């Protein structure tokens, strides 16, 4: 890569929302004034100690933060290498890291006087978090979810509805996360005056990738402190799964300027990188979709290709723009794990640690299984356990039943 390396990896984006060539504001004119308003509202909130204090209060007493940094003793023994720690985001209220971001955005929405919240969701975890905070603050909530995901994440659909949200199954395109996002954008264009779009990952037009990253950075900030307390030093490596990349960015960002910390993102390799998958860095190239320039899966005509992953939360043909930049600068290494590897990791973790992970972080665990044995015993490895597996148990039961019958 010919690019000059920056002095700091933590200063982006610039005032146009660019991380290198990535990011930007590729949206319809109808949305543009609102996006500029949001940028201002967020900058004001960020600088306001009262906003931070209010958010910290809810993070502590409503979300249940800080989430523990847990030494996974039996997994460490089993793999026989690096000392493995879990950042336990699955213990948050609503069962994943998604709530960190939703809380922040809902508080910004309230400051902007918006009464109607829309969201897209894949696995349903972002939808559940949004429905939860809308219930808490008495806001109308509409969640777009691909029809395929509605079928494979039923328990989350039921949960969202119980929380008072309206879940709208999306029948267009591939009927997964990408199409849910298209449909949410269509709703937003139509209801731009009343509505706040609560995006679930570090994607979308500027300022979303930056704002979502900031709200998720609590993960990495806590990890630094907790690791100091546990081991008296920084970790040697970090690893997290990537759908759009918000749990990963939240863990990584506070460590980007610590050159001694190796960082790995894990994309979903689906059936394998030569077949249907969702690994946009491994198998894609830069393009423009959903408001930003980033690595995307597409054909030679620039048509977006279908992604595939066993995990609804990773089944997206793109990745947040800051990740694309971190890839091109070489600061973060992007790996991928297949459906089968994730499933094996899910089962191993359930049996060894009594923690069934969501299928999304099971992809990160799969790479821990590969990397940890090659590292020395004093190597400190942190994996982001971004969500719990309860939502996936029916889907996994079906898959295992199917295998027995074969």
């Amino acid at each position: 890569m010919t690019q000059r390396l920056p002095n700091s990896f933590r200063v982006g984006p610039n005032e146009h929302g660019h991380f290198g060539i990535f990011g930007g504001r590729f949206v319809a004119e109808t949305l543009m004034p609102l996006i500029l308003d949001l940028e201002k509202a967020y900058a004001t909130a960020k600088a306001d100690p009262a906003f931070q204090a209010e958010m910290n209060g809810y993070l502590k007493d409503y979300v249940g933060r800080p989430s523990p940094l847990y030494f996974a003793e039996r997994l460490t023994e089993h793999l026989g290498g690096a000392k493995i720690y879990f950042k336990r985001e699955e213990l948050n209220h609503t069962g994943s890291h998604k709530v960190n971001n939703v809380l922040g955005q809902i508080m910004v929405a309230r400051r902007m006087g918006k009464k109607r919240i829309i969201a897209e969701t894949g696995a349903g975890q972002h939808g559940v978090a949004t429905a939860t905070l809308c219930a808490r603050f008495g806001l109308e909530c509409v969640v777009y979810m691909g029809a395929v995901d509605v079928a494979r994440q039923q328990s989350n659909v039921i949960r969202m509805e119980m929380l008072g949200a309206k879940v709208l199954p999306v029948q267009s395109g591939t009927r997964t996360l990408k199409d849910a996002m298209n449909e949410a954008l269509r709703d937003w264009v139509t209801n731009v005056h009343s509505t706040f779009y609560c995006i679930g990952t570090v994607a979308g037009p500027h300022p979303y990738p930056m704002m979502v990253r900031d709200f998720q950075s609590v993960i990495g900030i806590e990890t630094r402190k907790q690791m100091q307390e546990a081991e008296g030093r920084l970790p040697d490596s970090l690893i997290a799964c990537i759908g759009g990349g918000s749990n990963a960015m939240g863990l990584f960002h506070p460590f980007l300027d610590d050159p001694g910390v190796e960082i790995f993102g894990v994309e979903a390799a689906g059936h394998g990188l030569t077949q249907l998958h969702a690994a946009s860095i491994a198998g894609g190239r830069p393009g423009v979709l959903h408001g930003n320039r980033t690595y995307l899966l597409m054909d030679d005509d620039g048509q977006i290709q279908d992604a595939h992953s066993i995990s609804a939360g990773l089944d997206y043909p793109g990745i947040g723009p800051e990740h694309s930049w971190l890839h091109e600068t070489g600061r973060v290494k992007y790996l991928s794990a297949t459906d089968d590897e994730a499933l094996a990791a899910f089962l191993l973790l359930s049996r060894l640690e009594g923690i069934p992970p969501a299928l999304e972080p099971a992809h990160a665990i799969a790479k821990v299984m590969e990397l940890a044995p090659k590292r020395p015993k004093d190597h400190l490895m942190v994996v982001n356990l971004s969500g719990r597996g309860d939502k996936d148990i029916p889907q996994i039961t079906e898959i295992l039943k199917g295998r027995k019958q074969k």
Partner: protein
Amino acid sequence: MTTRIDARFAELRREGRAALVTFLMAGDPDPKTSLDIIKALPKAGADIIEIGMPFTDPMADGPSIQAAGLRALKAGMNLKKTLEMVRGFRKSDNTTPLVLMGYYNPIYIYGVDKFLSDAKTAGVDGLIIVDLPPEEDGELCLPALKAGLNFIRLATPTTDDKRLPAVLANTSGFVYYVSITGITGSAAADSKVVGEAVSRIQRHTKLPICVGFGIRTPQAARAVAENANGAVVGTALVDALSDSLDAAGQATARTVAEVAELVALLAQGVRGARQAAE
């Protein structure tokens, strides 16, 4: 630089009437029928032709135009073939303005410079790219102007007086006023409200103003043509095309005629309008 668009509006000004601007998707329902339809449009009464460039993820379009894009892609349409279609049209018509409308990614992947030069050579006059606001002018707008193509910007009900100058700054050919906050195929806006919006934009620019989104009938086209310099009709034409297809989604003997007949009715509507004195 005078493009076919500028020449056409100069002509219409002399005739004292507004333009009928038609939108159809390139390659819908198949490349050959699509070219036949486009060729039939000027005679039926279309003054300016917008051709959609199919894209898998058209986030500002409603179900009709989404489906049209998917039909076209399924029939093997792509950006290269869209430009071929333009060349095919230009063989027999060198005056009707052609505007390509769509999303940025296929152009970005084709290569901006190559696209602009191929489009200009093929006989394209202007571009409308939904997901390129003025904030991203460096991407395509400025290079397009340099290449001699009009870059037609969308102004919307959320574009307030403070923002309008930025939106109009690098706009050329005409201004496309999106009459509603919403996607294509939504309900029509109240014509009085639209008239006021057109007057507001006219205070900021001398460019012709065409109004689109939600115009489905000759009556609605006529009402818009009373105030604006053009009425854009898309979804209604795409629906007429779609209704003419057989159960397998293939063109029938009626397909070209159905579209042309609706265009003729819309043209009558537009031509029936009294233009406000300039």
